[in-house]
């Protein structure tokens, strides 16, 4: 199965969506003031942009969290004496793919909680009792009694501490978030980030067709969640996407000799260099000067792609550490060299070869890659 080049993105938020479920049943309504006060305090503590919904036990129609403080009494009246059954709400939530924390605040046993034992919803639920236990003698979910809003917030705030993106044949080529770094371990490519404020990333990658890379999110609590990367589109480089810069005619002469492995006359020292010389050391600069002075104007360091079109030569900066060479090969830049990795479909591994990318390697018709 061939590798294809895809653009995708990962959108994640530090705190999960919160679902409040408030108990106004006969066993809880005497404690409504405590329930409402705890809920209001908690809503005030949550980040402003945090998504959430608020339900009343036994009623599957949610309201916006932001409405709660304004309309507390009205909601209480409307939902008074509903029965302590969770199924109508959990049936609705089980159709959603979001990840959320569920807080059920109330008093007295929820009769049908056992029907949801071992469900992912109950695993995400915190029972908060203001008087009597919500699960009676059973032990089906985490439960705390008489907590403060701050205690609940601490339970809720379970930040992501690490993201690791991988997949079958996965090899990232470009990515937008500098907090991520590439690791190749035992032939598998992992794009990882930790302790970031924002884990959002746009990325371009190779992947086995029909597969999508997955992000493994690790939360501070130790919980791990797998989230697929959204595959957005197959990458097809179009002529109009290229931002090409012309070489001077003198530089073009150098390029045309170098690609045929012939020595060339240096613009800086006027001496002859070997075809694969990239920096002239006969200058005042300790590190040497690039043999193409035009490159200096763009502070280029890394891959440069040269395009030969209609006898003219252009270049383009490629400011990434990985370059696709052919369908199953990438060059991974390490300083001023780039090691070639080949994908073995049989072993599903990226294998480091003993070769580095030669200067002026032809990556497709009329396109040559060099590491500066």
């Amino acid at each position: 199965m061939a590798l294809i080049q895809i653009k995708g993105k990962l959108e994640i938020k530090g705190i999960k969506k919160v679902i409040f479920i408030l108990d106004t049943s006969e066993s809880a309504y005497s404690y409504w003031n405590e329930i409402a006060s705890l809920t209001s305090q908690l809503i005030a503590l949550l980040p402003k942009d945090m998504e959430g919904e608020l339900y009343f036990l036994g009623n599957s129609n949610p309201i916006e969290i932001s409405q709660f403080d304004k309309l507390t009494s009205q909601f209480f009246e409307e939902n008074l004496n509903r029965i302590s059954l969770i199924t109508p709400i959990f049936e609705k939530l089980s159709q959603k793919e979001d990840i959320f924390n569920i807080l059920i605040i109330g008093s007295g046993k929820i009769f049908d909680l056992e029907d949801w034992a071992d469900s992912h919803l109950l695993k995400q639920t915190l029972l908060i009792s203001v008087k009597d236990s919500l699960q009676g003698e059973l032990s089906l979910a985490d439960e705390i009694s008489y907590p403060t809003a701050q205690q609940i917030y601490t339970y809720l705030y379970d930040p992501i501490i690490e993201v690791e993106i991988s997949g079958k044949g996965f090899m990232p080529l470009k990515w937008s978030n500098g907090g991520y770094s590439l690791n190749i371990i035992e032939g598998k490519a992992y794009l990882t980030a930790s302790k970031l404020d924002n884990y959002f990333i746009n990325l371009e990658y190779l992947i086995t067709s029909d597969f999508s890379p997955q992000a493994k999110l690790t939360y501070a609590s130790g919980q791990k969640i797998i989230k697929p990367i959204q595959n957005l589109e197959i990458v097809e480089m179009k002529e109009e996407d290229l931002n090409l810069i012309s070489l001077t005619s003198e530089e073009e002469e150098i390029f045309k000799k170098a690609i045929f492995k012939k020595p060339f006359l240096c613009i800086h020292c006027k001496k002859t260099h070997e075809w694969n010389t990239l920096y002239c050391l006969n200058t005042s600069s300790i590190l040497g000067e690039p043999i193409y002075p035009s490159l200096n104007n763009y502070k280029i360091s890394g891959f440069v792609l040269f395009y030969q079109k209609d006898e003219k030569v252009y270049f383009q900066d490629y400011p990434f550490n990985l370059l696709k060479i052919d369908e199953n090969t990438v060059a991974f830049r390490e300083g001023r060299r780039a090691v070639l990795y080949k994908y073995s479909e049989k072993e599903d591994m990226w294998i480091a070869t003993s070769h580095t990318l030669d200067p002026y390697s032809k990556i497709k018709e009329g396109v040559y890659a060099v590491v500066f």
Partner: protein
Amino acid sequence: MQWFFDKTGFPLFYVSGIQVQLLPITKVQFEKFLVESKEFGDSWYANLLNINPRVSYKTFTSENREGIFITGLLPSEINFFIKWMGNGFRLANLREWRKIYHELKKIPLKRERLENLLFQVKSKPAKTIIERLLEQLNYEILYREARRELNWADITLMHYGLVEWVKEEGSYVGVGAPRPSFYPNLWEPLKDMVKPLKENERLFYFGFRLIR
């Protein structure tokens, strides 16, 4: 065999020209009514569960399966449920119940008929209950007890189930023979009927099913 489904997603089928519910009403069905109707509150339901504790449809066993059914209701309370169900549902009268039972006892249970039902049923609780019940009855009847083929009275629990409320001469009586382990008795459903001694007595072995 044609299957129909009530508003709770549980199945009904035709017997002698009557659509009858496959099983007595379960707690999960009754709870849909409690949620939507707001007729009864927590303390009322907690009292009811005290006389026949709730058992989850996901985990009921051969020993405690009666706990998945709603029992202990008074006829006046059942009428609220019937009204909520609508669509012509009602309790059977004694004669109708016995006729249905008599018919079902004679018909061997063909597994493919139930498989056809399981394919059609959308309600997760209904599907789970029928699957578990079939597995339990297969073991109990075929291998452990009678060494006979299952019939439709077995799977519908019209025997070895509950005493079921039916109408009789303007009043309500019970008919059916629970398993002795649930309620010891020697009742013969085609001959005996069960009359509660007191009108407002909640009896833990009294359930009901509806017809239309």
